[in-house]
């Protein structure tokens, strides 16, 4: 009755067909079954945003979504941002502004920022603050993170 199910989803542009247990979250399947450990496990209650990925373009906390719910979906994780050796403009901006301190929250911050810029390519500072409100940084590097997102938007990062 609790048998595993086969799901098919597109992760970072690649179609993956995998067996998943119904009680496994998208986060667990991305990390443990697909080896995409850029997405981080942290609070597991949808507060911190370290597990943020995009599902059909929308940012979600992958710890609060069952993997079976992602059947047929297109998923982007932080590993899907760079194009080969070329960093995404957001990643470049995060490096240049020193936005990454310990780095643990950064994959989630980047994916949230990418989702924000996709909807709103030229956000105000307040819109960036609101867009990233679901991503906590225990190093409190918010100033640099917000600067980085604004710089990437300025450089046209929202179009990528």
């Amino acid at each position, binding site marked *: 009755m609790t048998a595993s199910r086969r799901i098919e989803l597109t992760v970072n542009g690649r179609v993956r067909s995998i067996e998943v*247990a119904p*009680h496994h979250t998208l986060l667990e399947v991305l990390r443990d079954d697909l080896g995409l450990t850029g997405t981080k496990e942290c609070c597991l*209650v*949808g507060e911190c945003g370290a597990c943020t990925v995009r599902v059909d373009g*929308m940012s979600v906390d992958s710890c*609060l979504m*069952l993997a079976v*719910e992602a059947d047929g979906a297109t998923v982007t994780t932080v590993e899907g941002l760079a194009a080969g050796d070329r960093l995404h403009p957001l990643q470049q901006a995060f490096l240049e502004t020193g936005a990454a301190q310990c780095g643990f929250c950064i994959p989630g911050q980047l994916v949230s920022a990418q989702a924000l810029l996709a909807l709103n390519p030229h956000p105000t500072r307040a819109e960036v603050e609101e867009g990233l409100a679901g991503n906590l940084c225990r190093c409190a590097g918010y100033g640099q993170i917000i600067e980085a997102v604004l710089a990437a938007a300025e450089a046209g990062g929202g179009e990528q």
Partner: protein
Amino acid sequence: MRAFAYERPTHLDDAIALLAEHGPDARLLAGGTDLIIRLRDGSVQPRIVVDVKGIAELDGAIRETNGHLTIGARTTMTDIAADERIRREYEALAEAASVVGSAQIRNRATLAGNVCNASPAADTAPALLVYGAFVVAAGPAGTRRIPIDEFFVRSGVTALARDELVAAIELPRPTTRRRAVHVRRTRRRGHDLASVTLTCAVFADGVTRLAYGSLGPRPVLVADETGLLADPRAPDLAKMHRLESLFVEASPSPRSMRASPEYRLAMLHVLGLRAVGTAIERLAEGTVRR
């Protein structure tokens, strides 16, 4: 997380049959932003999770039907916050939906799930109460419409029967010109549950409706039909006395970690007065434009 079976029925009848068959061992899954937390911490241990997102009859559409705006069961907070009709005619609901959780939560969380979860702190509940919403419940005998004020029983408990599910939420079309506002108090800016969540609507005929949550086992609706609160010239002190008599049912929990009962009660009155003022200003703006 404990193992469970997962079903994604494609028809309403199949979903209702699964609920009837499994009774308390079944749980409905919409956005999952509350359910998955509870599955993980073990506070609910269903044998089967029934995902409503495949049901053809339930959708994420917001549509105008005879005398109502109908919000499908799969409509997310993001959709509600962005919908032009809701922003125009049910502005407090759009405002409330836009402060639920974070962007990630709003992209998944549904209005139907928010009411079914029946948290006393649910931000959309006061707006639904003020607007006199109906919950459309589908069960083995068909559908019935439950007034939202009867739907909320206490924390985590609704008027929904075990074999019913929420198919849609209906918002009656306004018959009198009105403006409303949603306000809340949180411990910090950004993503937090409300210590006080409140909606106020002022109607052109002088009625004021207020609903508040996070101050007792369920959200509460009150109304001032004396015209005092809606009167732009009435002094704040008189309005505060009126609010005190309207808010007598507020009974905040002494055990909450978010705020003390004294603080919540004080903030309820402060936010109540501010919300009345904002709703009056918005109503006046509307008058000037016409």
